């Protein structure tokens, strides 16, 4: 068991919720042969979106309820109720129990038991929620209106701009019949600004964004005005940029692209449910899968630098969400687990069970995924590169069960004889992530979280973050090669 650190107002609210769940659990009378898990979850959103000077959206959303999971006869039953009264919760427990019993005969492989791991007790509320709640709606509206106006007015070349403020406040409590008894509150604000530049019908757009776990001040570790100015300036610069050359090349990847690579192309293949389905990481524990310069982790904490967007103290099964080493000096060391997959693999759960809303079943999901920083400065990495490209600005990416990936970079800069050269339009990078990581021969010494404003999708969304240092490696870029051929 891991017990909580803080006696606060949030802790008192959390204790009341846990008491409600404990009472329901007591009345339901869970016996030694079954596991009953009750999860209260309230999710509140504030959103404000501005485009071309018009407030397109200004809205609040709130959704709350209790999810019940029952494991009996080696089989799961799941039911939810949005009515927070004892009778509705008792009916949901009964329904989940009946569903579990009804499905048990049809399971080929019964769940033998759940790995206990480090079940949390107490309140683990995070800082920043009161700060968010104290801000007026006027302040949020003013923020996005000013941000968009600033980006739109930054240059006569800017054709249109937009800005988005979104904020999630999560309130949770989990009580299980085998000892988890935990509550927490946390906030996840995010901010995005996009500028679209145009010249003679040629368009380029740049988005600057930040998404954190924390409060208002944490969000503004980069001044909003700088984000607007940077988006506009870079969008205009791209109008003059030529296309980057294709082909297999030496590249230095920025932390945002490293984040996309480790999340999309490596992280999903080491989610234990996916490993059980046959992902490429199956059977590779102890194998060399990357350069020895690469140590890759996934953590519920915000390692090295505060506010990472996927931070959570405890997962949605009540397990403390600690740091998990996936690849250590190039060797695959472990997978990401919930309590069931951990039991199947005979290891401790890693705190990766996450549900987006109360009515969702917890799935194995990443949190903050990153590569550990190395010893070399970014400047030294660039200086020691004879020819190559510096890639920055992650765009959308996708990956496959095989580790094959595709993602875009918004910008590229040529590197020639150790010096950064002209700005180029971004490229699409493809390849096999394990091969790319095996080619890493340089790792910079500073980590940056850079994927916190988006969502990961796996049937249900999840707020995650990813990042790392700058990496030097080989990658295949699509497009025309320097000699006019195709890559």
């Amino acid at each position, binding site marked *: 068991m891991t017990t909580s650190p803080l006696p606060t107002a949030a802790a008192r609210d959390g204790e009341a919720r846990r008491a409600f769940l404990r009472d329901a659990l007591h009345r339901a009378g869970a016996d030694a042969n079954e596991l009953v898990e009750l999860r209260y979850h309230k999710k509140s959103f504030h959103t404000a979106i501005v*485009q*071309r000077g018009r*407030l*397109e*959206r*200004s*809205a*609040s*959303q*709130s*959704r*709350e*309820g209790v999810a019940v*999971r029952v494991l009996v006869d080696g*089989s*799961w*039953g*799941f*039911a939810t*109720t949005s009515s927070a009264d004892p009778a509705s919760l008792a009916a949901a427990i009964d*329904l*989940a129990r009946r569903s579990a019993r*009804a*499905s048990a005969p*049809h*399971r*080929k492989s019964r769940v033998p038991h759940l790995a206990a791991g480090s079940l949390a007790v107490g309140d683990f509320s995070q800082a920043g929620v009161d700060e968010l709640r104290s801000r*007026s*709606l*006027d302040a*949020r*509206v003013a923020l996005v209106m000013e941000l968009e106006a600033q980006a739109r007015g930054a240059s006569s070349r800017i054709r*249109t701009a937009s800005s988005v403020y979104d904020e999630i406040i999560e309130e949770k409590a989990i009580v299980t019949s085998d000892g988890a008894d935990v509550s927490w509150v946390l906030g996840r604000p995010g901010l995005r600004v996009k500028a679209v530049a145009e010249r003679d019908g040629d*368009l380029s*757009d740049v988005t600057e964004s930040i998404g954190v776990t924390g409060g208002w001040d944490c969000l503004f570790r980069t001044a909003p005005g700088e984000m607007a100015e940077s988006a506009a300036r870079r969008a205009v610069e791209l109008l003059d940029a030529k296309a980057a050359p*294709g082909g297999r090349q030496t590249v230095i990847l920025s932390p945002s692209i490293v984040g996309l690579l480790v999340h999309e192309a490596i992280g999903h293949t080491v989610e234990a*449910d996916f490993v059980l*389905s*046959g*992902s*490429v990481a199956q059977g590779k524990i102890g194998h060399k899968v990357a350069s020895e310069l690469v140590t890759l982790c996934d953590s519920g904490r915000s390692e090295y630098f505060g506010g990472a967007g996927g931070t959570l103290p405890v997962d949605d099964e009540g397990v403390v969400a600690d740091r998990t080493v996936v690849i250590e000096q190039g060797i695959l060391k472990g997978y990401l687990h919930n309590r069931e997959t951990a039991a199947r693999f005979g290891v401790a759960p890693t705190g990766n069970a996450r549900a987006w809303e109360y*009515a969702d*079943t917890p799935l194995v999901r990443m949190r903050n995924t990153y590569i550990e920083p190395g010893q070399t400065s970014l400047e030294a990495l660039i200086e020691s590169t004879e020819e190559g490209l510096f890639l920055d600005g992650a765009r959308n990416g*996708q990956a*496959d*069960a*095989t580790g*094959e990936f*595709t*993602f*875009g970079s918004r910008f590229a800069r040529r590197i020639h004889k150790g010096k950064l050269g002209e700005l180029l339009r971004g*490229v*699409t990078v*493809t*390849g096999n992530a394990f091969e790319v990581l095996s080619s890493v021969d340089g790792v910079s010494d500073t980590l940056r979280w850079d994927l916190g404003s988006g969502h990961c999708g796996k*049937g249900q969304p999840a707020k995650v973050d990813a990042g790392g240092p700058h990496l030097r490696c080989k990658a*295949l870029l699509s*497009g025309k090669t320097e000699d006019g051929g*195709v*890559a």
Partner: protein
Amino acid sequence: MNPQSLRDLCAQGVALAKRAGAQQAEVYAQRTDQLEASFLAGDLDQVCSSAETLFGLRVIVDGRIGFATSNQPDHLAATAEAAVAWARSSPPDPLAGLPDPLPLPDLRPQVDPEILALGPDALVARGLDLLGRIEARDRRVKIDRAVVNRSEGQIAVVSSTGVDAAWHSAQLSGDVFGMAVDGAEVGSFSYDADATQRLVEADALFAQMVTAFADRCVGALGATRGESFCGTLWIPPHAVEEVLLDMLLTGANAGTVRRGTSPLADKLGRAIASAGLTLTEAGPGLPWYPLCPFDREGIPRQRTAIVENGVLRSFLYDALEARAVGRASTGHAVGGATSLPGVGVTSLCVDTGDMADEAWAQMKRGVVVTRFSGTTDPASGDFSGVVKGGFLIRDGDKRPIHETTISGNLWTLLHQISGIGQTAHRVSAVRALPAIRVEDVDITAG
């Protein structure tokens, strides 16, 4: 909760919003009861049941818009006050306003009692049947995730301008996600889904779905390096929307036109594609899958030709976008109770052409795109990405390929359509799409 009580909830919300200071108010409410059997790694995972009532209030206060939503009917008054508070914090908006009601077609939902009667055992049995059929098709196919879902939905929308509509529906849906594994070789992902409102159709539909899914998974095994050339692309029905239509539909959204981000803004009445392409938003749905006859705002859904014989004929509008240009809504407001209405597509069809469905075999040299994974830029139309689970065709021979990228510009590509299939295939219940062939595409082997 029955449809009438959902309507009553909406009416109460309208009254509470007006009491809180709104001059106009609209409440959209949805009640969903679901039962679902889910499967992980080829085995039954769990049976889930859920029931919830969600409602969203849109208010207009002094020409300003506010919105709030909740799943707690007891919090109706507080939610109305939250919507009014947002409106008061927002700047005046010349587009603010709610639509006036329009006559609705005869509203007689057809809810299949046999679907409503499906219990946990029946869903588990159907899921096991799906898995069994896949295994029988080819044992190398591994199911990462599969779901069989029975869903009953009720919706109601009531506004202070007189909109008052309700609907009731039930469906059985299934989806599968996985890949083929052969020894150390892991194939590319595949996914398929379908849904029906009539239980009697379910067996045949799901059998068809899992056959297509299993064949795609296995087809991706044994992939080798492709070839680099400028040539023909064969886009099967299930990939047509992803590869060809997504950006076009974004550009045909009146919201993107108003916001200045649609490259189609000045193209109405002009040819934007080869003359063979006719693309229609199917409004109240396809014959085999009728939809609720009104949109998110209670306005009748209209069947709308977007592209006719290659010419851009219409954008899609909700009430706000229609007001912005002084015309009527086409009934394309989408969204649920948790968001403000926005313009979107619900059901879609492409007219068939005269190309034989197996004409890929006659391609001299080309690539079949089973799935596309890449980056697209709706503003410029530029796209670039990898063909997943694709095939190289050479003089009638077909072999799986990997790491093959395609790149180009969508607006150019639409003019390079050289063939449209003779048969429209049902895709995910609400699409009727034929295969499409495109010429002169840059194809690059990795």
